[in-house]
């Protein structure tokens, strides 16, 4: 019993880490630019297809593929920001959200047209063989996903606290006017934010696609991640991480104790309960502005 529970928690944590990465993408963009990017899940999907193409069609090695995928995803984020979001940056936030929804439709159906709607397996370096450590039993894949996610999160943390650009990004999120007065190019920061968010989404894609397989509708996972971000308190980076991980674990445990239906809604029941008690999520301090 203990063994089963712990393995549930570990594999839930693995899924949760991926939610957390996607949630981070949402939160970074929101913090910096006040925009909710509903195409975040499509970054995950697209990066899966990019790495599939590089691995299978071009036969590149895994690490090269990872690197190229991250860069290409980042570029895609910048393009989306420039083409879709920047022209209407001053418009009501709703309109921007709908524009990103439109963009996500475009990305999704483009993938469908190019790759078809059949699912594709994405190779990975992590095997699906079991590992046993005392009461813990999990797969190499679980460990790999959790480990990689933690590395990414750590790298982001260092970037935001230790580098000048990271500090400028945080500063811009707090006051665009003051940041401009310090000589920060706010538009440059915006582009960079979208690039980073999309790149994180890209990592999430490379991690999750081998597990759940690739298909144009993969981006739907973004909805769960969004719920995780809200649970943690939208606009809070630790909130996004904790919220995402919590959801992954909660899903698995409720799936184990109840059925698939409860598993699906447990996320939202928890979310509603938390919001009723804490209207701005677990870590959210200030009310969300301008929505």
């Amino acid at each position, binding site marked *: 019993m203990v063994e089963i529970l712990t393995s549930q928690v570990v594999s839930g944590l693995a899924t949760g880490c991926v939610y957390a990465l996607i949630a981070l993408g949402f939160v970074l963009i929101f913090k910096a630019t006040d925009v909710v990017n509903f195409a975040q899940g499509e970054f995950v999907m697209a990066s899966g297809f990019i790495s599939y193409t590089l691995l299978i069609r071009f036969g590149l090695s895994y690490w090269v593929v990872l690197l190229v995928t991250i860069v290409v995803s980042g570029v895609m984020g910048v393009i989306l920001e420039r083409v879709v979001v920047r022209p209407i940056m001053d418009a009501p936030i709703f309109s921007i959200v709908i524009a990103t929804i439109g963009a996500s439709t475009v990305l999704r159906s483009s993938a469908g047209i190019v790759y078809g709607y059949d699912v594709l397996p994405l190779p990975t370096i992590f095997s699906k063989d079991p590992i046993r450590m005392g009461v813990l039993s999990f797969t190499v894949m679980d460990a790999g996903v959790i480990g990689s996610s933690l590395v990414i999160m750590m790298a982001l943390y260092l970037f935001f606290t230790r580098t000048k650009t990271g*500090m400028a990004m945080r*500063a811009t999120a707090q006051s665009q006017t*003051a940041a*401009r*007065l*310090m000589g*920060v190019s706010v538009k440059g920061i915006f582009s960079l934010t979208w690039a980073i968010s999309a790149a994180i989404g890209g990592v999430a894609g490379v991690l999750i696609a081998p597990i759940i397989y690739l298909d144009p509708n993969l981006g739907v996972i973004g909805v769960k991640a969004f719920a995780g971000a809200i649970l943690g308190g939208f606009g809070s980076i630790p909130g996004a991480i904790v919220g995402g991980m919590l959801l992954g674990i909660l899903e698995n445990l409720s799936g184990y104790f109840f059925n698939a239906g409860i598993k699906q809604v447990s996320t939202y029941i928890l979310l509603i309960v938390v919001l009723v008690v804490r209207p701005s999520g677990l870590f959210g301090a200030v009310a969300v502005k301008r929505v």
Partner: protein
Amino acid sequence: MSNRDNRAPGPPLLTVDGIETFYGSIQALKGISFEVPERSIVTLLGANGAGKSTTLKSISGLVAPARGSVTFKGQRIDRRPSEEIVRLGISHVPEGRDLFPELTVLENLKMGAYVRTDKRAIQASLERVHARFPILAQRRAQLAGTLSGGEQQMLAIGRALMAAPTLMLLDEPSLGLAPMLVEEIFGIIREIHASGTTVLLVEQNANKALSIADYGYVLETGTISLAGDSRQLLKDDHVRRAYLGQR
């Protein structure tokens, strides 16, 4: 103290010539012209809504004037984005401080030096700021949002100093501060000026402002209605009635 002559001494550091600035369809500035001589303190006086803050924003590039020109060190700077103007040596301490509340005091100061690359020079500036504002050194790890009003104003000025500016634009530095703190802030402005920085000061507290300034301009509904040596202005009837609360 510097020259108190009526005419501007030497070449002007900043020349504002006939700028008109709009917010949407509302015209905030209707043709403002003035000069800020090198190494002087110049103050802009005026009632709320006269266009003082807008003038500063038009200089620092936060808003773009629709007409007219701003010249700094002989270069046109209107139509340039803020981030370039900062690099040229203009630091703007905005009204209400506009600190980064969730960054620490030290990080706020570092952000002030964002455009500079010489690490050693930055360190030197940091030491100077810490020497001038010991409280900022004490609270370096504290979040800026948790400071008191006076400390926040000091941080805002300290942050601007970190850019090692030639010209500092100060917008209502005494707003909302206790009288003792106001004294302190004005002392600091004097010191900054003494160390070679030119200051353009916007103040509601006309008495105090004119007492430290070399030269003053009075703004009324988007135009300059009066200009002159600060001692003259202090004696001017209109100024006394309208801005010094004297009859």
